[in-house]
Structures are given as C-alpha cells and as structure tokens.
C-alpha cells in the first residue's frame, strides 16, 4: 500500500528526515516511536501533503500512485487520512456542517449522491455513540473550545465517517485520559481490516497496549534505527530511547 524510499524532508532549511525507508502492506499496523524531534510528526505530515514540509528527494508510492505528485485533497480522496496531533479550530463553522461537507466531498469523488440532512444525522448519531461523543458537540464550531480529548475523538470520528484505506494517527493518545483512550482505541480497533493499514505515531506504550501493532519502528534523527514486533515497544517503555 505504501512505499517510502530514501525520503529526505526539511522544514525551513532544517533537515528532518534522512534517507527514510518504510514499507507498509495492506492490512498491517505499524507503530512509529521515538523521542521528541526525531521526525515522527514530520513523516505523518509529509504523507498528508502539508506544504510546510519540503521534500528534498526520495519517493513515496501510495497504492502504486506517486503520492508526492498529489495535492492534499487528492491524497485524502484516494484514502489517506491523517489524525492530527493538534487539530485546528475553525470558528464560525459548526462541526456538523463541516463533517457533512467532508463526507460529501468523498461521496462526490466516489460518484455517489451527497448524503441528505436526515440520513447524515442518523449516521452521525450512530458514529458519535460509539465514541461517546454528545450530539451537542456537533452544534459547536469545529474544535473551537473543545477539550484535548474532544478534539482527538473528533479526529477519530472523521476517520470513521470517511473510512480511509491508510490511517496515520499522529500522537492521538496525547491529551486523552484513560477512559477516553480506551474508547478511542476500541473505535480504531473496529476499523482494523485486511484492506486497511494503520500507522500509529506515539511516544508511549499505552496506546499500543490497546491497538497491537504488527511492526514497531524506532525513529532517531529522521531515520529508522530499529524495527521489530510489538515487544520492541515494551522494551522501549522500560529502557527508554537512550
């Protein structure tokens, strides 16, 4: 599904990723761990096409397409989803209207009719219940005044509405209390399937105790310095990155 080959990425002339190689097959769950500044978020944002990150060289193939030639919109419509570590606030736009708009963009791309208000409300209720999100939250402006936990749940809700092929979760566990972490992890686990892949970016073991990865990669200085199975995450948790 995803092939990253010798990828070099900079932000404002500072090189972050160095000749990064990573391959993710359909149905696999990969975890990326590493200390602060190791390049974990950079790879997440580069995959989603954030223009603040400059790709100096290398290639990324996503379902046989050259991802670097695609705009962020196109990447999303083709099934790539980044759950942000810091979701932005959009004052003046209600969450429900925003969610319906993003869903309709995807339906249009799939050649389907837009979802009407009544059907959307039913779908929204159903998905919100799974995440224990009160419907009242959807009449508020997107992420505006949301708690850290509400913002993260809203990211997972969008993931569930759009049903992407490749999910990248950028430190979704930060800002979540124990109960919210379990609810979020359960919702993500429900989405695991043989035709969907996940990349979980995290500092800590705790999210990986709920969502078991097939592979764990340790990042340092913009490179993968070690890869292994889920036991690697437990070892890092005990011994640290040093």
């Amino acid at each position, binding site marked *: 599904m995803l092939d990253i080959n010798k990828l070099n990425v900079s932000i404002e002339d500072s090189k972050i990723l160095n000749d990064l190689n990573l391959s993710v097959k359909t149905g696999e769950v990969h975890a990326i761990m590493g200390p602060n500044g190791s390049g974990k978020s950079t790879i997440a944002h580069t995959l989603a096409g954030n223009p603040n990150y400059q790709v100096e060289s290398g290639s990324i193939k996503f379902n046989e397409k050259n991802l670097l030639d695609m705009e*962020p919109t196109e990447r999303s419509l083709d099934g790539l989803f980044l759950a942000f570590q810091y979701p932005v606030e*959009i004052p003046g*736009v209600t969450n429900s209207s925003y969610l319906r708009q993003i869903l309709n*963009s995807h339906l249009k791309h799939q050649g389907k009719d837009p979802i009407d208000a009544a059907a959307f409300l039913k779908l929204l209720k159903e998905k919100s219940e799974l995440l224990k999100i009160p419907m009242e939250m959807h009449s508020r402006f997107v992420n505006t005044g949301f708690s850290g936990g509400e913002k993260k749940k809203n990211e997972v809700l969008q993931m569930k509405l759009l049903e992407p092929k490749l999910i990248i979760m950028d430190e979704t566990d930060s800002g979540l209390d124990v109960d919210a972490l379990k609810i979020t992890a359960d919702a993500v686990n429900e989405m695991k399937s043989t035709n969907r892949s996940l990349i979980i970016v995290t500092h800590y073991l705790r999210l990986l105790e709920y969502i078991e990865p097939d592979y764990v990669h340790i990042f340092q200085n913009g490179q993968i310095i070690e890869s292994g199975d889920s036991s690697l995450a437990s070892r890092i948790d005990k011994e640290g990155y040093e």
Partner: protein
Amino acid sequence: MNKDHFTITIRDSEAFIENPSEVISISNASAFLKDKTLAIKVSPSEKFMQINLVVNHTKNIPVNFKIKLELLEGSKLILLDESHYNNDSDLEFITIMKKNSCFELYKINRYQNNNTNKFLHDCTLLENCSFKDYSFSNGSKENFSKTIVNLNDINASFLGSGISINDSTHTDNLLEIRHNSKSALSNCYFKTVAKGNSKVNFDGTIFVDNHCSKTTSNQVSKGLLIGDHSKINLVPKLEIYNDDVECSHGAASGQPDKNTLFYLTSRGISKKDAEEIYIEGFLSEFFDTIENLSMLSKAKNFISLNK
C-alpha cells in the same frame, strides 16, 4: 395588507408605497413624500413594525433619495433594505429616536462593480433607546458608507455589525459613535473580506464627551485578505474625555491561516472550497448578535451567495 408591515419602493428617485390609500391610515405609521424626501413617523406599539425598502432601477439614472425617520416614544421599527443596486445611488437616512424606542436596521445589499454608491445615516438616540444596525454588502467601484450615531441620553444603546465582502471593489466605511450622555452603551463589529485587487477602508471613531461617565464602548474590526493584491486598512480611533469609562478596540487583518486550509484539504475538500469555508467561518463569528431568526437567515444566505 398587514398593518404591521409595509413596503416602500423607490423607483428611479421616486418613492411609491404599496397600496397608498391605506398608508395614511396605517395603524402604526404615517408617511409623507416631498422633494425626494420621504418622512416616516412611527407610533408607539408593543410589537415591531416592519418597513421593507425596495430600490428599483428602471431607467439608467442614479437613485438619489432621503428618508427622515422619526420613532415616537415607545415605538419599535424594523427597516429592511434587501435591494440590489444596479446603478449609482445616493441615499441618506436621518433618524430621530424618541425615549424608549427601538430600531433595527437591516441593509443586505448587492452592488455592481462599475457603480458609485453612497449611503449616509445620522441617527440620534434619546433615553433608553436601542438601535441595532446590521449591514451586509459587497463593494462597488466607489462604495462609501458613513454612519453617525449620537447617543444623547442615558441608557441609549447601539449595536453595529457590518460585513463587507469585496471582489476587486473599493469600499470606504466610516462609523462615528458619539457618546454625548452618561451611561450609554455601544458595541461595534466590522468584518471584511478583500479578494482580487479590492481596497477596503474602515474608520471607526468612538467619541466620549467629558461629562459622559459610566460609558461602555467596544469596537472590533477584522479583515481577511484573499490573494496578494488586495488591501485592507482598519483604523480604530478613540477620543475619550472622561476617566470613568470602559472602552476597548481591536483591529486585525491578515490572510487565511495556512494550517486551517491544510487541515480542510487534508479531509478531501478542494482548495477553493476550503477557502470558502474559511471565509464563511470568519464572517459568521458575529451571527450570535442577530436575534431575529428571519434576518439571521437572510444574512447567512447573503454570505453563502457572496463568499
């Protein structure tokens, strides 16, 4: 004909009142027309009376018209102007609000890019009067709007909310709020979007006279620049000659937040739609100041069509 509701049509600088034989006997208002000036007097009432102003251009001549409004003690008026101005125009309102009267003015107007349009309003409020002034417009070649609010007696209050969406047009908005009495309140919000090579100026003055203690006045103006060739100039001015006041003002303009646009596009929304969502959000921030649901719907519709 609903007696709490009538329409005035200004056609090529002549005014017509729907069903004029009934106008003179209308329960809550009387209207007189003389020398391109329409004088309207609104009588006391429990309910709001609504006048719809319709400006029609049937000939290729500019509209030039004056309306003198007098709200008698205890009267309540909504004046709605939803006209599309297809030619040059020069409109002037002079409003006198007597004790305990309420006035809500909604101007939701579209102008043409190649025209010159001018609107002047001088509104004087006496004791316990409330004036709410909502304006939604796009610009034109030269679009000039000036409102002077005279808060002349205690507990007079003004709420002004202006939205100007410009696409290669030029708009000058001047607002002068004059606190001429103690214990008066004013709140003003102005938001503008400038696309293409638009130029928008907002000049907001709050004047508080030396005897006007217990004054409260706030003014916020914000501009959103779309593209590299538009200009927004927001100038808030405070002239305060009394120490016992609470006054604030803030002005900010800039381009759409890149992180927000990336967030929206990363969810499958096109760049153009993301920008429109951003504009809609930016302009909708003050919607909670509009309590009248019918007018709120009209304002939302205007933004949706012009963003």
